[in-house]
Each structure stands twice: as structure tokens, then as C-alpha cells.
């Protein structure tokens, strides 16, 4: 019982209404303001159901956050306002500058980095609540925290810590600052399960013993398990992990919301929690893999081995001029962008190519696979950045029937999402994933840097060796620039 720090009674609240002995009973107006913030967050996500309402939605989100912050400041004292203002200014400044500077292709890393901050903030808030429970209205003057609040606090800290350390690893792997290949400890499943059990056990113990060592151990173990859980997962699986961590950060916020009886936090936690879970589910489903297999890790390692014995069969190489000629003659071209386009930052020159072709009367469509790239909606953002008209962009189900009437399927930096093995080869790691039927097109153009390079799943692709396939081996941006030059002549 070392951690309970009795404190002086607060005097500097403006609308002070904390019932010191357990159970926040806030004024109805304050509760209403938090509810309004929660509703505005719902409207923010709702706005994303279409691009035309999305900007309004984002503004609702900002207003909601403003209401939550101002309400909290008004009810919890302005005494430390200068310090708080400084903290907000420093944090906000860093945030805005990062948001302005970041390249669209680096979005996955950015999201991972941001998640780590939310996780850390949750840990700190949990600790602050532990050290000064009266401020949060969860303990009487004797400093003894209510049992229920202890559980919520413990869960919030644990989930926050996992979110933090997991996101840091995800960030390092996505940013290429750490090898993407899975690092497999022996017996890791046992270690992980034991650690998780220890965390839960300690949180249970915490209801009996408010001692500092309990919560400190929980924190340390949770940081550790965040690392342990994510280290064995291959770099390519990181997007699922990022989304899962997003979900966790939501549950952490919700746990703190229960402690504070704060509607805005509870609603937000549920929204963010669902959002991350659903996105993870969508990704796993579109890859036809189980969530468990992603989380169990080791995917990248197996794949890298399986993808070696290749290049025995004949294939045809094309030049930018050949490609330009065929494209210019075509009636309909379907462009299939993938991760390589993002790496090469080829979206702008690709849009130019589309415009040049349209000027010649070619019908140009963009086909986006749900898991093209490394993050849900990745390709859409890049094409949007390059000003590709929204109406030219189609989803898998909507365009897959059209390849038979298509002259050129133009694959740029995509690979797995056009691999027919997903339809035919039961032993393939991508078997069952829906893919584009590019083999039905008259001509297939395939941009990648080398015959040796593999896609995310690390498997060979029969499309390389088809009669109608023309391999365009070069960096995607370079190749498209050359095609554009040839088209301009």
C-alpha cells in the first residue's frame, strides 16, 4: 500500500461539482456537452460514407474535440492554464507540421506513429489517475481507489501500453527502420500467453492491493508484450496490425471513459474500437487469411522461402515505345495500381498517362483491389492526390466483369492482386483471395523492377509468362514517364 498519495482538497475549480467520496456526479450541462461531443464524433465518421460529405464530417470531429477540451478545462480549473496551453501548443504544432509535411505514401507509418502516442497518453493518464485519484473523483480523501475504478485503470494502462510498444514496432517496420522480416523467438506463444495471464492476474490483485509495484509491473509487462506480440509479425502484415492497434487505442480510451464516467470517451472508444476491428477484418477477409494467422506471425518468413524457384519459363519483355503504341491503339485500358506504384510515387505521371490516352479517345479506368497497397484505401488516396477523377475509379466487384472487353490491362506495381494462383492453386498462400481476371484482357502490361522481385505474399505469378503479357521492367515512375514521352510524340 505504498502508492496512495493523499492530497489537499482542490480549490481552484470554476464549476466544481466533484463528489469527493466516489462516483462523479457532474452537472447535467457538463454531461450534455460530453454527449454532444460523442454525437459529433459519430457524425464525423458518418460523413466518411461519401467523399462529398467527408469534409463536413471532419469539421464535426474538430468541433466535438473542441467541446470536450473546453468543457474539461471549464470544469476542472484553469489554474494550470499556461502550462496546459504550452503543452497543447507544442503538441499541436508538431502535429500540424507533421501532417503538412508527410508524403501520402508514408501514411501507414504516420498512422502507426500517431497510435503509439495515443497509447502512451493513455498510460500516462492512467498513472496520473493512480497518483492523484481524488482529482478524478475515484477515491475519497483517504486516497483509497474504488475497486471498479482500479480494474478500469489497470485495463486502460495495460491496453495503452500494448498499443504504444506495438505501434512503435509497427512504425519502425513500416518506415523501413527495422527489418520487416519476422523475428521468431522460440516458445513465443507460451511466453506471450503467460505474460497476458500475468497482466490479468495482477489487475485482479490490484483490486485488493493498491500498491505501486502492482501497477508498475502491469505497465512494464504490457510494454513488453506489445513488443513480443508484434516482433514476430512480418513487415507486410503490419497494416493489419496497425488497424488492430487502432482498435486497441479505442478500447483504452473507453476504459478510461468508464473510470471518468465520461460519455464522450466511452462513445469514442466504442467507435474507434469497432473501426479498427472492422478494418482488420476487411483486410484479413480480402486477403483470405484468418486474423489468428496474422497475429500468430511469421508470414513473411515462409513466403520468402516459397518464392525462390522461379524464372524457368519464357517471358516477353517490352519497351516503353511498344507499350505506348499498344495503349494508344486501345479502345479500353484498365489500370491496376499496387504497392509498387506507391513506392515509386508514380501516381502523378500515371494520371498524366491517363489524360494523354483519354485525349486520344481511349477509355481509361482504374481498378482498385481492396488490399492493393499496404493499407485500406491506400491506392484511392494516392490516385486522389494525383487528381484522378473519382468516377474513373472502380472497385473489384464492379469492374471484374469488364476485362473480357478490355484491350490492355495495365498493371503497375501490383502483383498479388492479379495472381491467378489465388483462383486455381490450392497450395498457394493467397488461395481464395479474390483477384482481378486480367488474363481475360487482350494484352497485359506488367510494370515491375525485376523478374526476381516478388509481391507481398512472396509467390510466383503465372501472369508473367502468359502469351499476351508484356513485362515492362523498370521503376514504375520511370517507365510511365517514358511511355508518356512516347505517347506525346
Amino acid at each position, binding site marked *: 500500500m505504498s502508492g496512495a498519495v493523499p492530497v489537499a482538497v482542490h480549490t481552484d475549480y470554476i464549476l466544481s461539482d466533484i463528489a469527493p467520496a466516489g462516483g462523479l456526479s457532474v452537472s447535467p450541462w457538463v454531461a450534455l456537452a460530453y454527449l454532444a461531443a460523442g454525437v459529433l464524433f459519430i457524425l464525423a465518421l458518418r460523413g466518411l460514407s461519401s467523399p462529398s460529405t467527408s469534409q463536413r464530417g471532419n469539421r464535426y470531429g474538430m468541433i466535438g474535440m473542441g467541446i470536450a477540451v473546453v468543457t474539461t478545462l471549464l470544469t476542472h480549473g484553469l489554474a494550470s492554464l499556461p502550462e496546459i496551453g504550452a503543452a497543447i501548443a507544442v503538441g499541436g504544432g508538431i502535429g500540424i507540421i507533421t501532417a503538412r509535411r508527410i508524403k501520402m505514401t508514408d501514411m501507414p507509418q504516420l498512422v502507426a506513429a500517431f497510435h503509439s502516442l495515443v497509447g*502512451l497518453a493513455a498510460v500516462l493518464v492512467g498513472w496520473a489517475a493512480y497518483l492523484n485519484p481524488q482529482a478524478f473523483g475515484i477515491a475519497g480523501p483517504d486516497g483509497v481507489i474504488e475497486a471498479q475504478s482500479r480494474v478500469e485503470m489497470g485495463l486502460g494502462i495495460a491496453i495503452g501500453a500494448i498499443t504504444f510498444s506495438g505501434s512503435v514496432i509497427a512504425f519502425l517496420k513500416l518506415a523501413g527502420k527495422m527489418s520487416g522480416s519476422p523475428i521468431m523467438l522460440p516458445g513465443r506463444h507460451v511466453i506471450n500467453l503467460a505474460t497476458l495471464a500475468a497482466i490479468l492476474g495482477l489487475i485482479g490483485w490490484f483490486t485488493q492491493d493498491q500498491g505501486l509495484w502492482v501497477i508498475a509491473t502491469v505497465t512494464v509487462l504490457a510494454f513488453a508484450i506489445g513488443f513480443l506480440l508484434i516482433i514476430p509479425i512480418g513487415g507486410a502484415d503490419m497494416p493489419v496490425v496497425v488497424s488492430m492497434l487502432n482498435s486497441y487505442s479505442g478500447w483504452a480510451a473507453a476504459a478510461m471513459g468508464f473510470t471518468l464516467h465520461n460519455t464522450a470517451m466511452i462513445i469514442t472508444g466504442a467507435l474507434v474500437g*469497432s473501426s479498427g476491428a472492422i478494418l482488420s477484418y476487411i483486410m484479413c477477409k480480402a486477403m483470405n487469411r484468418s486474423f489468428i494467422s496474422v497475429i500468430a506471425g511469421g508470414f513473411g518468413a515462409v513466403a520468402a522461402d516459397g518464392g525462390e524457384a522461379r524464372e524457368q519459363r519464357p517471358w516477353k519483355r517490352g519497351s516503353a515505345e511498344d507499350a505506348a503504341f499498344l495503349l494508344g491503339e486501345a479502345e479500353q485500358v484498365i489500370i491496376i495500381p499496387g504497392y509498387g506504384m506507391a513506392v515509386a510515387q508514380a501516381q502523378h505521371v500515371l494520371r498524366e498517362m491517363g489524360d494523354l490516352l483519354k485525349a486520344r479517345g481511349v477509355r481509361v479506368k482504374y481498378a482498385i483491389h481492396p488490399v492493393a497497397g499496404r493499407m485500406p484505401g491506400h491506392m484511392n488516396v494516392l490516385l486522389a492526390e494525383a487528381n484522378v477523377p*473519382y468516377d474513373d475509379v472502380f472497385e473489384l466487384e464492379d469492374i471484374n466483369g469488364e476485362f473480357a472487353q478490355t484491350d490492355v490491362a495495365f498493371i503497375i506495381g501490383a502483383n498479388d492482386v492479379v495472381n491467378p494462383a489465388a483462383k486455381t492453386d490450392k497450395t498457394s498462400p493467397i488461395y481464395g483471395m479474390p483477384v482481378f481476371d486480367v488474363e481475360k484482357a487482350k494484352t497485359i502490361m506488367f510494370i515491375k523492377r525485376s523478374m526476381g522481385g516478388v509481391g507481398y505474399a512472396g509467390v510466383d505469378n503465372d501472369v508473367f509468362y502468359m502469351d499476351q503479357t508484356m513485362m515492362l521492367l523498370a521503376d514504375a515512375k520511370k517507365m510511365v514517364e517514358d511511355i508518356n514521352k512516347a505517347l506525346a510524340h
Partner: protein
Amino acid sequence: MDFISTLSIFVMACFVGYYVVWSVTPALHTPLMAVTNAISSVIIVGALIAAAAAGSGYANWLGLIAVALASVNIFGGFAVTARMLAMYKKKDRPVPVAPAEKAK
């Protein structure tokens, strides 16, 4: 607010979250990740309470750091979302005829 009320709100909010997120168009999944990131920083409420409270120097400092961290997310998250969404917005207008120059 008793536990069951809180729980009820939470359960209902989970249903809302489920439906509202499924209604997001796949093309906006990346902005979705960014904006959920921003709103999950509502944890700043807890941070502010800690930072504003008198009594414990440690708790104050932890609160202030948490405020700063959450602020990075709030401002960064909303700003980067706005930046992305502005790109989609452009395309609601009629397609520019010769936009090739701008692209590089």
C-alpha cells in the same frame, strides 16, 4: 452515473460504431484511420484533468506530457485527414481538361 448506465451507453455506442464504420466507403478507409486516430485522442480529457488538478506534482507532469502527446494526434490527425479529403473533394468538380502540368 452508475455502472450500468455507462455500460448501456457503451453497448449502444458499440452498435453505432459497427454500423457507422461499415457505412464508410472503402475509398475513404485511409482517411478513416486518420480521423479515428484523431478522435481517439479524446483521452486528452483525462490528461487535462490530471494536468489541471492540484495536489500531486507527478500527476501534474504526467498529465501535461499526456496533453502534449494527445495534442500531436488531435491536430496532426485532423489536419492530415483534412489534407486527404481535400484531394477527394477536388474531383467532385468537373474534371479539369488539361491538368497534366500541375501534376509534377
